[in-house]
């Protein structure tokens, strides 16, 4: 029977068992270089496109931001002096790769109006890993539903020292114009003890 033959007696084996011809160093080097060059071009093209997000500049928003990048968020009289923080969506044009979504929520902020002084704005994103924090009226603090960080309502600082968040809520720049609250909406990197703006 054919398959009972010893495996080392096929034509392939004969070839491998034959004495090897001499190998020339230059031929080897040339083969390696040529082979590498063949691989580099497609790989380069692919990686160049793949890393595009690292280089691309963001398109400037035209969805209502003023020259300094502030966005209109809420009417001032919607906030009680000394009242609880209230959550507002921040509306701007949003670009998602090839799509432009005009006037969409790009994020959200909590606004707090102290008894006197300017309104404060906090990004709702938890500086720990980016979950959206809730305001818990019962405990009078912000509470993150993910890993239990908690923050104080008036200044956004960490309330419970066991919170995993490395810093308080990210306060945003605010201005009040004609009875409206404008916020310079920004996101910051999570997990660092100081605010590093997301590029």
């Amino acid at each position, binding site marked *: 029977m054919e*398959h009972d033959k010893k495996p080392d007696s096929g034509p392939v084996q004969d070839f491998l068992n034959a004495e090897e011809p001499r190998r020339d160093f230059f031929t080897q080097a040339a083969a390696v270089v040529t082979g590498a060059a063949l691989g580099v071009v497609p790989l380069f093209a692919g990686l160049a496109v793949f890393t595009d997000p690292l280089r691309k500049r963001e398109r400037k928003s035209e969805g209502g931001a003023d020259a300094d990048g502030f966005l209109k968020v809420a009417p001032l009289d919607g906030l009680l002096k000394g009242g609880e923080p209230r959550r507002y969506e921040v*509306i701007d044009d949003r670009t998602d790769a090839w799509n432009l979504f005009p006037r969409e929520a*790009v994020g959200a902020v909590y606004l707090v109006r102290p008894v006197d002084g300017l309104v404060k704005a906090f990004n709702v994103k938890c500086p720990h890993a980016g979950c959206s924090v809730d305001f818990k009226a019962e405990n009078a603090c912000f509470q993150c*539903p993910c*890993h239990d960080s908690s923050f104080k309502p008036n200044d956004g600082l960490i309330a419970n020292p066991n919170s*995993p968040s490395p810093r308080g809520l990210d306060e945003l720049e605010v201005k009040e114009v004609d009875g409206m609250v404008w916020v310079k909406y920004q996101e910051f990197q999570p*997990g660092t*003890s100081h605010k590093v703006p*997301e*590029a």
Partner: protein
Amino acid sequence: MNTFLNWLDNRTGIRATVHEALFERIPGGARWRYVWGSTLVFAFSVQVITGLFLWMAYSPSSLTAWESVYFITYDMQFGWLLRGLHHFMAQAMVVLLAIHLMQVIIDGAYKAPREVNFWLGLILMQIVLGLSLTGYLLPWDQKGFWATNVATKLMTLVPVVGTKLQRLVVGGPTYGHHTLTRFFAMHAGVLPGLLIAFLALHIAVFRRHGIKAADPLHKKDAMFWPDQVLKDAVACLGVLLVVLLLTIFVGAELGAPADPSQAYAAARPEWYFLFLFQFLKYFPGETEIWGALIIPGIMFGVLALMPFLAKWKLGHRFNIAYMVIVLCGIGYLTAQAWHEDNRGPKSADYHRAVADAQTRAERVRELIEYGEGISEKGGRALLRSDPKTAGPDLFKRNCAVCHSFDGHDGTGGPQEKATASDLGGFGSRDWLKGFVVEPGGPKYFGPTANGSFNGKPIADTFSNGAMARWAKEHAGKMSSEEIAAVVEFLLSQGDRTDLGPVDADLAAKGREVFELGSLDANAEGAESRACLQCHEMVIDGAPLGTQGLAPGPDLSRYGSEAWLRDFLLNPDAPHNYGDRNAMPSYKDRMTEAEFNILLKWLRRQWLEVKGKK
């Protein structure tokens, strides 16, 4: 037949290959404990097959991913079966992987000369976990979206290159189309390709050293075919059966479509990653990197070093003890995470978030099935423009500063400091009746006594205003029929579709009361009771009666969308509250779309599916 086989073998050497594949000697005989590797190969094959077919129906972009998965699950015949198999087999794979690894460690199959194969196995494990992580995002529902969001945020913790890495993975500054295209390319291309390559190596190296017999003298030696193959096949059948049962009785769920503006407070990773999720809670501040990367990295490193540790006299025992401790740790953390979500002090919040997500998922299905289907704006737009879903939050943000809604803030949250009327049931018969009878009461103008407007207290402008005084004097003198009639008349102006048909006869009587003050022309003081004394009303273009001083709001088409729109935009207009006004205008407070949703929500104009379970 034989001639053909001979020819084929001569050209390909197939007999030798098959022989080599099947006639592997198993010292100590075929055993159940050797089945795990094979079940993993089987599970992976199922994933490849179901995955390829899912691919034929799936479309990775932030406007089509959820939509195509919805279509697979609910519209394509047996789509639920295909998706269920893929979904649950993925989880089975993780379980089988853990068992396989445990068995390799217990049997000492990681020791020399099989170290390399052990490492190949660990690489395979990482690839499988990578597949599960990338796959979780692809349906683009709230759960996958938010859980993956957190997972990728953690990548920024990697020193130096972290943020760059995260951006590469996410494909841009925010989650979107390119996150999906990238995750999908990883999930369906790169990772399975790697997995096949490493699996081939894994099996080849395994064959080189043969099986590590747990006990070579257990029984007579046997051959892989057919003894062990039969056992393997039975085990695979068992796995398939479990997966099928889960598919049929549990089913792969699909949450509401991902919406970056709709935070999901119950975002949790897949159950087998829960322990890592829980672990993070114990690392405050900048120590987070320890919980997220360093400690898990070290633990995995020890695992990889096991073949070397085993050289030490007690090494194997140490390895087994290490495995048991790690498993107990994982078990403990998982249980703890489960406990905090289900029994702990914050479990109510978690459950509310889960229930809310459930409601949204069911609602979007209703909107698709009974409404107009999914437009090119995708499933997310359906919920955003649905008054029933989006209304409560708009109310909370825009109206609940002063108003309450059935005693809460519109979303079910607390509202203790209301300084204006309760708008729950606005325009309904009960609500109108209450307003006619006791306008100064706690559900209506009562709370305004504690409010202020433009810095001035409202005091009793409304709580003891003209309307409240009218009610004190007249409401008690009206018959219940008169009151019901006036209510029906006002109701008839609002074009409400949710309150049942208008009783035309009663409404006609109500009009009489509105104009004349009573159904009984001779009733005492009737004309000073007539609503028309204070409120104008135009019906079909013709004003009712002779217009009086009309200090109260114009009630033409009262309660209709047009009336409400005008009232909210111009509360201080002379035909509304005029000088007495104490309500801020709703101009420019929200987008036109949001305003429309709010109007519809207050009037309960939304798609309601009758007679659903």
